[in-house]
């Protein structure tokens, strides 16, 4: 309160000049300190990846210098080609793409239907059923890998892309997001559509889904990132390169190379991470907003 009274005349009176510029200086110092803090934090976060990037284009000899060489003397892009000679990363990439998109396609159907039912339909045991869905949201698949492995084995699905997708086709989390989204739609919209004789799946498809498109997009981005990064489940249900995904391929490559050739290991690591990082660079706002939105719910 004291300050608010003093602040006014200071702004107006020319006598207050020196004090005003002092304040300006303090504000500049604060701003510089802020940028220094965030700049060094950003640098620390970037170092691990940049260090891998330089290693991935170095020659084998240049790795073992006593002081770190941040700028390679000769850019050896052939490391990236060599990686393919030791492991079929193109197949891993294709498998990852199939698994990630296969999971997403079915998820979009199951979560839209279930989310709509929980949000807009009246039925018995609605609350209880919703809790059943929430359990899956909190209970990670990692906890039940052993029985799930046996299920996949008895279905004869070991070493298939289907095995890597099946457990994720229902998503408690996605259902939760969609339920929230469908709840926001005003009832008048639905009633008007019903009066026009638009019911059932047609109502869902042509009236409701256009309203929740941003949420579907947010969920899609999160799902793609999550399953691109899956590791444990694909690791245990596959044991041939033919069906393996990028993350597992990378882990196998590490074991096979047993840490001997760092240039190739880093080239492989960069390749595995590049697709999502490039997408992120171009769609930064979209990604960040999706993760923000989904985190808020």
């Amino acid at each position, binding site marked *: *309160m004291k300050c608010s009274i003093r602040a006014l005349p200071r702004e107006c009176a020319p006598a207050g000049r020196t004090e005003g510029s002092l304040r300006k200086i303090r504000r500049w110092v604060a701003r510089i300190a802020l940028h220094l803090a965030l700049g060094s934090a*950003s640098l620390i976060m970037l170092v*691990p990846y940049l260090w891998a990037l330089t290693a991935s284009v170095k020659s084998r000899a240049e*790795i073992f210098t006593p002081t770190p060489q941040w700028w390679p003397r000769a850019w050896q892009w052939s490391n990236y080609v060599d990686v393919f000679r030791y492991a079929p990363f193109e197949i891993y990439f294709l498998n990852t793409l199939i698994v990630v998109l296969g999971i997403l396609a079915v998820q979009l159907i199951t979560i839209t239907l279930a989310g709509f*039912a929980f949000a807009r339909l009246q039925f018995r045991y609605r609350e209880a059923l919703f809790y059943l869905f929430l359990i899956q949201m*909190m209970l*990670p698949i990692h906890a039940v890998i052993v*029985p799930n492995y046996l299920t996949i084995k008895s279905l004869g699905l070991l070493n298939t892309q289907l095995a890597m997708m099946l457990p994720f086709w229902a998503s408690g989390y996605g259902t939760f997001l969609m339920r929230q989204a469908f709840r926001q739609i005003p009832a008048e919209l639905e009633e008007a559509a019903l009066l026009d004789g638009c019911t059932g799946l047609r109502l869902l498809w042509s009236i409701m889904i256009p309203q929740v498109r941003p949420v579907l997009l947010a969920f899609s981005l999160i799902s793609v990132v999550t399953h691109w*990064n899956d590791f444990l489940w694909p690791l245990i249900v596959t044991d041939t390169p033919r069906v393996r995904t990028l993350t597992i391929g990378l882990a196998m490559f590490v074991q096979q190379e047993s840490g001997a050739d760092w240039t190739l290991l880093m080239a492989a690591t960069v390749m595995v*991470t590049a697709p999502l990082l490039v997408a992120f660079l171009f769609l930064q706002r979209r990604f960040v907003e999706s993760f923000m939105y989904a985190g808020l719910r």
Partner: protein
Amino acid sequence: MAHSRASWRGQRGAQAFLYLLPSLLFLAIFTYWPMLRAIAMSLLEWNLSRPEPVFAGLRNYATLLADPVFHLVLRNTAMLAAVAIPISIALGLVLAILLNEPLGFLRGVYRAAVFYPTMIPMAAAAMLWVWLFNPSIGLVNYYLGKLGLPRVEWLYDMTWALPAVMISWIWKNVGYLTILYLAGLQAVPTELLEAASVEGAGFWQRVRYVTLPLLGPTTVFVVVVSLINSFQVFDAVHIMTQGGPADRSNVLVYFLYQQAFRFWDIGVASALTALFVAGLLVFVVFVVGQMERGVFYEV
């Protein structure tokens, strides 16, 4: 009239059931059934020396509880949560508060630099850190030496293997927590902050008395998400240390993986699964209870 409404209701019930059916089918096969099956299998002796399962009562639980490695694993998992979560939450909170200040075009750059590890698979992130923690040519030891600090064997060291895993985990997760806090900060009404400024509150006072109290619900959410994540650490351990040296960096899910897929002891692995699921369910019921009491989502 009443009749037609009732049949319309019945129809809607059928419609709801049909809409839930696909989800329920997959949930039943891959979430509910495995939970029950784990309990049933935990009562069997089923391992390499006994490929045909026989009833064993609670012997698997006894084996597990008597195993000193299991105790070490529990301690490591708890340690990881107790150390890595507070550090990553503190870092995420500070970064979010700083990123929420006016920064001009650089905000996007800083935000991308902090958030990009979220896009990287944990397995690949672990690879980056194996390279950084290399005892002889790693960047970490080089700069430690520059600072006059002792060099450490990191992944090969009994004391430092688990902290090394934690560091990679924090690096990978801090950006996500920052984004969650940024979302929380955007929900803080600007009028409140402006009112505080007019009253003469400085930056620190605004943070302490306005921002932090309003971030309470976000923090509860962040803690729950982080805890659930920390129980599931596997990729980093598998790539960086394989649980070693001498199980000093072995954690719950990696131990489960070893029991089932290295030692092929399905009985003991199922007992572990049953305990794990029971623990998680207790945790979830507790959290949901808190949610219903309205601790969450007040803003």
